[in-house]
């Protein structure tokens, strides 16, 4: 029983990690309707920016976070302004933008590897920090922080999108960009805000997760963005909260899979769930069915 | 259509107690009507009356919640769209749905049924059989293009044609598809009065040649002049039907057209 509990806790922690990233990814998707796969690149690069400030130049952890967030926001907004917005203005579908996003992901990932090497790099020299015991269950400071932060952010974003004018405006924009422009919303500005906040989230999570795991490497973004996609689809595309929910479900499933089956299959199982959801419940587990995958 | 069938007045299409709801909305509600072969029947009614939904149900794009659809005596509700088309119902779309980046000729040649060259095997094997078939298809398309006064635009991409020409290509596709029953959705919308006239003449000619036409149309004049029979829909159901003279005099129809529910 306690083994199960430990796996469940690990699942919640892993789920929080996915939810945290899915939140940013979903926020961007809500605002722009683009699957911004380059988000994985933003995540990776900002982690290394934080590493540079925190480890290379010994400027302290806060500087690390700031560096990560600033770099992330810059990358995210630039990608939108230089790539997606012109494509949108030219009448190109979000689908083609998604393909170009793959290109950006590949460029950023490999530039990161060129600068810092493709081997993992230690972010948290002290390794895991304080370990807490809750009965037979282990957890660390950073893990607790991740779970709490994710919960807080998810709640904040839910409030934002439901009850704050800016949030409602961004949602409306995502649902019907043409109409929103007709009504006078500064569409591009709102989308850029979406990209900025979403990317900032990526920067924060990159450092947090890097601290939790201890190391970072140039491929982390690629893996993470695939999982974020799975989380978003499992949860449901309509809203950010659903994406976070999808992240939690994914974390739990993966850890239960590790418990029962070998850990090497967790990716394959995650993608199998993705496909099953796409086929049988396209609106996602928590979605409202407004934007579903089926034809 | 066998001679016996036509002589006995067997309907080529029989729609029976058709119903379809979307969520709480009853788009089609206990709709029943018949279409006689070789005639031009018009389906009219205000916006939201359920006409296009009826078309979608007849052609298999939607599955009915209740009711049946008989075509030439055979049940076709429940069939997939391409199967319904194969059975002999050629369906046109309000939004045309042309193959935009294909030429006018290619649009029409694609519609010609029973082409072995459209199967992988024949495409790979090639040979004189394929050549002969392609020549025959091309000849049919050329004849049709001539008839539709599109000969000069045969190689032009469909998306480059004028709206009127595009509508002709759409009609050409339906004719090439050799359906016995042609379903046309707003065939004269966006056309000048002269072109609408031209359409009317073509429709008449098709009917003379034995085709049956069921059309959704808002142009009252065309409807009255062209139709052998009119079915009036309102809020998903049929409120009147009959030859133009009858329908014109029917006050319920007037109400429907004035938008009073």
């Amino acid at each position, binding site marked *: 029983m306690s083994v199960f509990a430990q796996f469940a806790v690990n699942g919640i922690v892993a789920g929080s990690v996915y939810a945290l990233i899915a939140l940013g990814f979903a926020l961007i998707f809500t605002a722009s309707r683009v699957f911004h796969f380059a988000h994985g690149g933003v995540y990776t690069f900002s982690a290394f920016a934080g590493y540079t400030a925190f480890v290379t130049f010994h400027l302290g952890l806060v500087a690390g976070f700031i560096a990560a967030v600033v770099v992330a926001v810059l990358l995210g907004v630039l990608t939108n302004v230089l790539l997606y917005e012109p494509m949108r203005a030219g009448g190109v*579908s979000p689908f083609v933008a998604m393909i*170009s996003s793959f290109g950006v992901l590949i460029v950023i*990932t490999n530039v990161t590897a060129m600068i810092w090497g493709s081997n993992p790099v230690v972010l948290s020299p002290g390794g895991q920090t304080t370990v807490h015991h809750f009965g037979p269950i282990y957890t660390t400071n950073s893990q607790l922080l991740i779970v709490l932060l994710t919960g807080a952010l998810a709640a904040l974003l839910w409030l934002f999108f439901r009850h704050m004018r800016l949030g409602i405006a961004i949602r409306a924009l995502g649902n019907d960009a043409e109409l929103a422009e007709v009504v006078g919303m500064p569409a591009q500005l709102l989308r850029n805000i979406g990209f900025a906040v979403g990317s900032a989230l990526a920067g924060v999570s990159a450092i947090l997760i890097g601290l939790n795991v201890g190391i970072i490497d140039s491929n982390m973004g690629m893996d993470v963005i695939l999982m974020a996609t799975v989380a978003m689809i499992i949860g449901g595309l309509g809203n950010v909260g659903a994406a976070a929910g999808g992240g939690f479900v994914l974390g739990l499933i993966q850890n239960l899979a590790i418990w029962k089956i070998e850990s090497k299959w967790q990716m394959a199982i995650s*993608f199998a769930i993705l496909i099953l959801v796409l086929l049988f419940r396209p609106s996602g587990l928590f979605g409202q069915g407004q934007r579903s995958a089926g034809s | 259509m066998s001679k016996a069938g036509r002589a006995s007045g067997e309907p080529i299409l029989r729609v029976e107690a058709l119903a379809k709801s979307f969520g709480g909305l009853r788009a089609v509600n206990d709709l029943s009507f018949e279409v006689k072969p070789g005639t031009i029947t018009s389906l009219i009614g205000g916006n939201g009356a359920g006409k296009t939904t009826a078309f979608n149900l007849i052609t298999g794009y939607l599955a009915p919640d209740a009711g049946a659809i008989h075509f030439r005596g055979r049940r076709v509700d429940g069939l997939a769209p391409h199967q319904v*088309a194969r059975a002999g119902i050629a369906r046109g*779309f309000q939004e045309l749905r042309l193959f935009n980046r294909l030429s006018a000729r290619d649009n029409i040649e694609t519609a010609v049924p029973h082409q072995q060259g459209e199967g992988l095997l024949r495409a790979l094997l090639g040979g004189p059989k394929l050549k002969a078939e392609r020549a025959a298809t091309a000849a049919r398309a050329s004849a049709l293009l001539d008839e539709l006064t599109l000969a000069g635009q045969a190689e032009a991409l469909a998306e480059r044609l004028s709206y009127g020409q595009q509508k002709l290509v759409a009609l050409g596709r339906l004719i090439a598809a050799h359906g016995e029953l042609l379903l046309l959705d707003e065939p004269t919308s966006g056309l000048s009065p002269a072109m609408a006239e031209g359409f009317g003449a073509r429709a008449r000619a098709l009917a003379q040649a034995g085709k049956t036409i069921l059309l959704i149309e808002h142009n009252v004049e065309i409807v009255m002049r062209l139709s052998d029979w009119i079915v009036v829909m309102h809020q998903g159901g049929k409120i009147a039907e009959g030859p133009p003279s009858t329908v014109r005099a029917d006050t319920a129809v007037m109400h429907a057209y004035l938008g009073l529910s």
Partner: protein
Amino acid sequence: MEYFIYLGTLISIYATLAISLNLLIGFTGLISIAQAAIYGVGAYVAALLALNATNDLVLSFLLAAAVGVAVSLVIALPSLRLRNEYFLIAALGFQSIIFSLFMNLEVTGGASGLYGIPHPALFGPTLRTSGEKFVLALSLAAICYLLARRITNAPFGRLLRAVREDDTAVASLGKSVFRIKLTIFVVSAVFAAAAGTIYVYSLSAIDPVAFGLDESVFIMTLVIIGGTGSLNGSVLAAALLILLPESFKFLAIPEAIAPQLRQVFYGLLLVGFTRFRRQGLIGEYRDVLQ
């Protein structure tokens, strides 16, 4: 000389792969990102066959194609009902699952892959030299090109393009869109699996990393840059994208970052072309991708 043979072989394989994906993306409008998985399936089947039973080339092709087609159908059958982005995401899912299988199954050698694969035998004599294998690769590419040309010039090709334009309208003309899409999936899989067979016999080894998502994106890049709907474009793109990074060698770029620089190059091309020239080098229509 060896160097040019090696490049030629690589170009031939990628030209074949690009053609196989172009049939899906450019002609039919099915944007699949799982092509590397099919390529890999063909490679592993040929490798396992050669290691355990026979190195006969014809049998290798046949079995690789058969399994490749089967896997392709497993992907296609459920995914065909999804539209656009979601079809691609499903394909992404399948690509990842299959890649995971390559990396984690015992029989495929796991992350280290397979090695020591014998030379192929064609109707008897064994092809040992790289020169002979290059001729093999080139012949396959030529055959695939000619077959693809034949198919796309026939009424079948016109029907594919019609499906790409508006599959609802195709159905309304009495033609089964499902059958058409399945058929082209099968053809595409045969070509991709055949390319995998050549890959295996040329390298005599398999590294599973060669069949991951990056590779699928690369093949898609080839199709887009060459021009969706243009077979010649696919061949041209394969040649350009293999040859151009080779010129980096003459720019004194440190070995350590050469592979990454190459990827950056491909990524930039993909971004550049999707942003500025969606019709690719030789393609006709700007917007085939949508």
